[in-house]
């Protein structure tokens, strides 16, 4: 494949196809539609962190005037545990069926117990209160340490670890060389233990859906998700309705960050709609989002790194315990696999442990697991560099992974851009700038790197030339951050026409071929592959049509600047035939012009980033603020630089929140105590500085435009970069997140306390 050079649209900051609707309030998100005869669904949720459900009596609720349907777990298709895993992507349907509606046990406060559909939201809520549930309340465990105690409450009694019932539900390891031997060669070894709190993806749009089921079973789902095909498949599996009967329409999605890669409401609303014969709308409240949808894991990690005096890492060992929540499936693969990937380490052991506990089931969050692992590793890297008296970026350069490095998680790296990100960070104006005077506040600078796998996978596209000679591209991936803009740039580039003539839409499940989730930073990588191949087919057709009209060989026709031309004067003297002219002549020349391509795309290269962060700490108030930030990333090829920068800036902002403020806080009763935006403190505009981006472009040779995924890497290094900067400011290291004002003050008081003791 040739990398397109000398571009007109690729690399331009064009206006996104869906932009106009979004700045005028016209765009339709999940909660923005209605249907005739629509009623409202509500969910009754468990108040207990852990309880056996002895009985559910819905009779009073059913009798309430206005109630049209009630469902419980009896209505959801069961995937019995003993029959073994039934996987849909990375999700085991045994856990999904129990997550959308508790079966024998409620496993977290907020776990759905039953659902009601009624003519108004108020009646549905009232009916939920009339449902009588007899619970046998059980002991519970939320924090990892509690869940691992020998006498801990066990969530899933069938699960054994080391032969005993356990909350450890999974383990993986990546190994290279021999760490015992490696550590013997080390002149300096540093080992530290870190904890992080669960944090929520924090999308501003709560989960919502509107679903109608006709008497013949034909089902229409309107919802926002990171995959209409995932919605269709999961709803089909949990309701028993055939996939061919479910049309899942992707609404505009108001943020997901991984959290909308599974379903919560759709199967329940489908069953309510089926029972009631009416379209059912369900919209979560913010509180429901915070209590019952995926945050990412809280964690406990221990990282040990050994290096020689001259700064070569000889061995490293990481153990990462991640909270899965109620069901198995925490992102240990990201933590164990990504965190050491920037480095060429001869002896390495990286282990991940998946730990169940009584909180909501985790969902993917931007580079799932990788930021947790990188936080621990990159903080230890900083300490080792300091002990060696090396500049932290030089230390990274000395140990950087490059082409040919065998990564512990499997691959031998192809040409990668990690070194370039470190060099660019080193050469950045930011790294050269003095920290400046904090006016009584303490300032510090930190750096950190990060890696994410990136993904390919299934994608489908259909490209059609309209009768008036313009272009409609249909793909199957919800556009979560501007992918339609990138696709328009690419298609316009290939066809040699103005990008405004290309309309890009996201098809529903019954109008475009299967396309896997919007996740893994795969959308622009994969969809531009299928769009490129479709467009190339169209160009071939256009050349053939022109050849037919000119009565010459198709090989003698070239496509340039939106028109067919003879390749040379020898081929004949003809006026160019434009896309419009060929479209007009299409009926007489062989019919409509269009092409579709479906692929399981391969060749996604991993992504690397290196960040530089300056903080300022108010030692009286304990407030740490990020005052300058630079994110450097190898982005492959920035098809639309504005939205690539947007990914970097958005990821950094989320990481700053994770580092400084965000955390789930629990009551003594095991319930989330801060289920709203006031107390779950995400960064607001006045908390942040501008976020500078340096896009390093090392094109992916396996992609027609050189694209690499960019969406997830930017969250990976952030917490460590902030933590290292705070250390640099205060001379004290934090081993736990968030570094919120009370924790900073506590740390600053330490010498006083020690002196007093």
């Amino acid at each position: 494949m040739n990398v397109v050079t000398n571009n007109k649209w690729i690399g331009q900051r064009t206006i996104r196809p869906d932009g106009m609707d979004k700045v005028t309030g016209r765009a339709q998100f999940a909660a923005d539609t209605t249907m005739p005869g629509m009623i409202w669904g509500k969910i009754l949720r468990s108040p207990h962190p852990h309880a056996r459900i002895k009985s559910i009596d819905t009779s009073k609720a059913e009798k309430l005037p206005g109630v049209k349907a009630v469902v419980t777990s009896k209505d959801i298709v069961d995937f019995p545990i003993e029959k073994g895993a039934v996987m849909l992507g990375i999700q085991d349907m045994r856990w999904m069926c129990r997550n959308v509606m508790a079966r024998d046990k409620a496993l977290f406060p907020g776990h759905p117990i039953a659902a009601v559909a009624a003519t108004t939201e108020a009646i549905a809520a009232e009916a939920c209160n009339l449902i009588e549930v007899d619970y046998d309340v059980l002991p519970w465990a939320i924090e990892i340490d509690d869940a691992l105690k020998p006498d801990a409450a066990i969530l899933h009694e069938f699960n054994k670890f080391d032969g005993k019932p356990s909350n450890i539900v999974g383990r993986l390891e990546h190994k290279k060389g021999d760490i015992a031997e490696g550590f013997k060669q080390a002149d300096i070894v540093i080992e530290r233990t870190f904890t992080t709190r669960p944090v929520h993806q924090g999308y501003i749009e709560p989960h919502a859906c509107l679903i109608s089921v006709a008497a013949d079973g034909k089902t229409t789902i309107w919802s926002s998700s990171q995959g209409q095909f995932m919605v269709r498949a999961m709803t089909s599996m949990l309701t028993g309705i055939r996939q061919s009967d479910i049309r899942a329409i992707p609404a505009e999605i108001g943020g997901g960050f991984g959290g909308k890669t599974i379903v919560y409401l759709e199967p329940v609303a489908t069953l309510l709609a089926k029972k009631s014969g009416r379209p059912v709308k369900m919209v979560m409240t913010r509180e429901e989002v915070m209590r019952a949808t995926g945050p990412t894991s809280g964690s406990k990690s221990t990282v040990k790194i050994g290096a020689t005096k001259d700064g070569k890492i000889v061995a490293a060992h990481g153990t990462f315990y991640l909270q899965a929540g109620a069901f198995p499936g925490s992102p240990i693969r990201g933590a164990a696999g990504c965190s050491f990937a920037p480095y060429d380490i001869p002896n390495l052991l990286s282990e991940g442990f998946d730990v169940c506990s009584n909180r909501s089931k985790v969902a993917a969050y931007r580079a799932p697991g990788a930021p947790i692992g990188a936080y621990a590793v990159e903080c230890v890297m900083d300490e080792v560099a300091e002990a060696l008296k090396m500049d932290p970026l030089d230390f990274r350069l000395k140990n950087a992974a490059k082409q040919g490095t065998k990564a512990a998680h499997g691959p031998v790296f192809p040409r990668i851009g990690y070194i370039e990100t470190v060099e660019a960070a080193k050469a950045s104006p930011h790294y050269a700038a003095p920290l400046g005077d904090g006016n009584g506040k303490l300032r510090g600078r930190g750096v950190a790197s990060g890696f994410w796998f990136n993904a390919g996978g299934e994608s489908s596209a259909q490209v059609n030339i309209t009768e008036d000679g313009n272009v409609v591209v249909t793909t199957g991936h919800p556009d979560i951050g501007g992918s339609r803009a990138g696709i328009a740039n690419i298609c316009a580039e290939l066809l040699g026409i103005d990008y405004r003539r290309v309309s890009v839409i996201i098809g529903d499940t019954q109008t475009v071929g299967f396309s896997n989730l919007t996740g893994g930073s795969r959308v622009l990588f994969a969809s531009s592959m299928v769009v490129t191949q479709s467009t190339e087919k169209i160009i071939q057709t256009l050349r053939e049509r022109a050849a037919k009209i000119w009565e010459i060989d198709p090989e003698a026709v070239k496509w340039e600047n939106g028109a067919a031309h003879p390749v040379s004067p020898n081929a004949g003297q003809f006026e160019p035939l434009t896309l419009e002219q060929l479209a007009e002549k299409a009926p007489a020349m062989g019919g409509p012009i269009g092409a579709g391509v479906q692929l399981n795309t391969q060749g996604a290269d991993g992504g690397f980033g290196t960040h530089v962060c300056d903080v300022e700490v108010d030692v009286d108030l304990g407030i740490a603020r990020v005052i300058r930030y630079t994110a450097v990333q190898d982005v492959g090829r920035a098809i639309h630089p504005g939205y690539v920068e947007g990914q970097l800036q958005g990821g950094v902002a989320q990481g700053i929140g994770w580092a400084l403020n965000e955390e789930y806080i629990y009551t003594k009763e095991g319930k989330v105590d801060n289920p709203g935006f006031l107390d779950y403190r995400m960064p607001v505009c006045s908390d942040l500085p501008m976020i500078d981006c340096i896009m390093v472009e090392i094109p992916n040779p396996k992609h027609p435009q050189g694209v690499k995924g960019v969406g997830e890497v930017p969250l990976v290094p952030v917490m460590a970069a902030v933590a290292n900067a705070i250390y640099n400011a205060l001379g004290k290291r934090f081993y736990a997140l968030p570094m919120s004002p009370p924790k900073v003050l506590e740390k600053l008081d330490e010498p006083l306390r020690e002196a007093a003791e």
Partner: protein
Amino acid sequence: MAKVHVTTLINGEPTEFLCEPNDTMLDALRGPLGLTGSKEGCASGDCGACSITLDDRLVCSCLMLAVESEGHEIRTIEGMAQGDRLHPLQQKFLEMAALQCGICTSGMLVASDALLKKNPDPTEEEVRFWLAGNLCRCTGYDKIVRAVMETAAEMRAQ
């Protein structure tokens, strides 16, 4: 409960609607009035996705009762463009990629417009503090702040 009849002005149009006494303005806008450009991110006044103006004052429509609009003037995102002519802020948001998912965009634009009406020459800090009630989880605010500053500069030059 009997519904309440409300007469108000919405985006310059005299409007009548019926609502429950405890409906919020956001409920009324998104429900009977069909103006779904204002979004509900929290229903507690913490995200700003529901921002509107009430007699030119920026408010969270989720914190206001629908009946309180009686006799007042409401403006929403749907009233920001003049026909097919975008407001300069809308245009600048598009040009500068100041939106990703777009769920916060209506609220950001309404709030930014209210700022520039009050203060046509805001500093970066003033923009950041004014918009501190509007959460955006996608953009890190960088491009939003730049778009507001640049629009302000262009509007001043005209």
